[in-house]
């Protein structure tokens, strides 16, 4: 047993760190540190920098642009990326639909979509949740009916993150209404420019617009946009959601956040001295650092176990990563509220729904409000507890 990184792993970490130091665009770094929204162009430019280096899709098979790194190297890469801080490539492409196409798609689909995902030529969004289908996803009602060479899609998706930027959406659609709920679902790729698609933004409590409703009204989709087999979409969705859980601890991001908290708490005064010198505040911070260290090691244990549960099947213990990871992310946003105190109040808004022009202090309360989402998305923390109870404890 040895919990420290090996010499080779340390050298790899330094290589990655140096690359990020030299190549992350300073404006993106600044926005992330201050909790601002990045623009579509920010992420496209950055993904292309990574892709040029061959690091946009490190976890994919080598023949499709992957790096062949070990799980530990992947882990180091993600940590360093979050700590830089830099934005991870759009997960809907590289972590969700990409691996599904890789694993279940046709040769033509692989050839067409995968390089475009790696280079951010297409912006993908996820069409899973519906107004009546959240945690009970399999109850979804959006239908795709065959007519000639097309699927005709009708229905509504919701909570569709960044659909306002999207070129493509991957959708779960009901293709066999007579089958029992999990078995009549198919996984279909839909061009967002298709006639009959309407995107309506949802303003969230932080004042931002990250999520949308997407309406489908007799949308025609070529039959060959089906991924894998008809009515097997639920299996692909489970595969995809399992992949989502492994990167969700965001340890690197929380570390970066804690650094930021210490910096701010050293400059904001309370009672004639920096907030950072307040014993109660310091103990709260130390408490979170300890939990984060525990999470980091738990994550490393899960990483070290990767593959032991079969390819593409997540370690059920990875549900811990979701639960604790989101708890800690939320706790850091609460600490920022503690630091800023009464100056959390001013609200800054602009017509774009982007907060670029406002003073960074106005981002702290919205960040706190916005981060309530992390214990809801990706399988709510309650669903994660169901998973542990069933898959780990056998209840």
């Amino acid at each position, binding site marked *: *047993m*040895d*919990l*420290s*990184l*090996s010499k080779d*792993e340390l050298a790899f970490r330094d290589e990655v760190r140096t690359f990020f130091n030299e190549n992350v665009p300073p404006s993106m770094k600044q926005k992330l540190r201050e909790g601002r929204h990045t623009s579509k162009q920010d992420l496209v430019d950055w993904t292309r920098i990574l892709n040029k280096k061959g690091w946009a899709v490190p976890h994919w098979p080598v023949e499709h642009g992957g790096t062949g790194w070990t799980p*530990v190297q992947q882990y180091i890469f993600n940590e360093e990326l979050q700590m830089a801080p830099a934005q991870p490539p759009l997960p809907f492409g590289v972590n969700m639909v990409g691996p599904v196409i890789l694993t279940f798609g046709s040769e033509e689909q692989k050839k067409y979509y995968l390089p475009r995902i790696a280079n951010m030529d297409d912006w993908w969004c996820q069409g899973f949740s519906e107004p009546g289908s959240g945690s009970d996803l399999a109850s979804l009602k959006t239908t795709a009916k065959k007519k000639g060479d097309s699927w005709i899609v009708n229905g509504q998706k919701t909570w569709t993150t960044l659909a306002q930027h999207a070129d493509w959406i991957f959708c779960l659609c009901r293709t066999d209404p007579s089958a029992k709920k999990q078995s009549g679902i198919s996984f279909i790729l839909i061009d967002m420019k298709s006639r009959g698609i309407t995107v309506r933004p949802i303003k969230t409590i932080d004042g931002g617009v990250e999520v949308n409703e997407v309406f489908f009204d007799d949308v025609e989709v070529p039959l060959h946009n089906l991924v894998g087999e008809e009515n097997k979409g639920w299996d692909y969705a489970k595969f995809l959601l399992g992949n989502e859980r492994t990167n969700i601890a965001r340890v690197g991001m929380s*570390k970066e956040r*804690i*650094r930021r908290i*210490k910096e701010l708490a050293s400059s904001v005064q309370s009672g004639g001295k920096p907030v950072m010198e307040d*014993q109660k505040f*310091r*103990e709260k*911070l*130390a*408490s979170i*650092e*300890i*939990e*984060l*260290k*525990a*999470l980091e*090691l*738990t994550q*490393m*244990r899960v990483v*070290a*176990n990767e593959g032991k549960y079969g390819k593409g099947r997540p370690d059920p*213990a990875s*549900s*811990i990563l979701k*639960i*604790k990871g989101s708890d800690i992310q939320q706790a850091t946003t609460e600490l920022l509220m503690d630091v800023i105190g009464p100056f959390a109040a001013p609200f800054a808004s602009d017509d774009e729904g982007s907060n670029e022009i406002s003073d960074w202090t106005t981002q702290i309360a919205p960040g706190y409000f916005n981060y309530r989402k992390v214990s809801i998305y990706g399988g709510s923390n*309650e669903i*994660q*507890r*169901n998973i*542990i*109870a*069933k898959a*780990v*404890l*056998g*209840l």
Partner: protein
Amino acid sequence: MDFDLSEEQRLLKDSVDGLLKSSYDFEQRKKYATEKGGWSRSVWSKLAEQGLLGLPFSEEDGGFGAGAVETMIVMESLGRALMLEPYLPTVVLGGGFLRRGGSAAQKAAHIPGIIDGSKTFAFAQLEKNSRYDLADVSTTAKKQGDGYVIDGEKFVVLNGASADTLIVTARTKGGQTDRTGIGAFIVPASAKGISIKGYETQDGLHAADITFSGVEVGADAALGNPEDALPLIEQVVDDARIALCAEAVGAMDESLKSTVEYLKTRTQFGVPIGSFQVLQHRASDMFVNLEQARSMAMFATMAADFDDAKERSNAVAAAKVQIGKSSRFVGQQSIQLHGGVGMTMEYKIGHYFKRLSMIENTFGDTDYHLKRVTDNGGLMK
């Protein structure tokens, strides 16, 4: 980075678990508790026969030269079995002082007796007002001729009434809380001037309050520098904290297992109570707490031999915080989920809760260690 046990470590784990399985179920434990001093000599001999009492000592001292990971493996298993025998005071504490601070002569005089199981140790450190501060020492060791005369009172000395030999902290100079001027002395429990009042502790172990009045020891009783033994004491106590973290993980692991088993078998309203989501989620939270504690016990184990004492103690303190929080949650919820039967002395789950509670308050509780980590500026560099 590697979380796997080596082949040898796996064999060690199998051997400890095998021994405990055959001779340490909860009913057998009840019987051992009634033996002299509250623990079983025959179990102790078996531990010696399997080489477990000699694990951490170097090969030239007659041991196996094993490291902190091996101690973690053993302590976790002992925690799972709620072992009563004095492994912590004898092998970890007594043995720790000898191997880290003992002279060649001291090692030769004492280590063989630990390894063959003929001698046990106790660490007489806690005083009426010292609480968790290892530098707070009022017991005195005054120079007399070549040797020392020890006067003072020590409390809740684990294995204090059974031990053959005591390791006693005492001040050779300076004020009550000075970091220098503290010595650690090897004192035979039978020495003249020692009076021992033994008792059972809440968790079924045994401890003693010990009074030293004019206890004379030779110059060779001092471990290391008699005027500057605090760094040694801190290191050995860190060893003990690390061992306690592993013991707690074992106890929590068994508590969760037992609780899950109960949820599956206890029926109410015509169904197993484990089918109720509110109880499933509680059990899931116990699992999360356990695994976070396990990670930190590993972290502490890796820190055992850090060169930088400050870094070591900070890591160990952080681990003790996590273990304290997790132990409280897992311990309390184990009782809650067992319901009434969890409250009975007869059933085993309450005993795990009690041991976990006592571990939390041994060598620094959660608040104490959180303050240490805080004063060190946290964990992140």
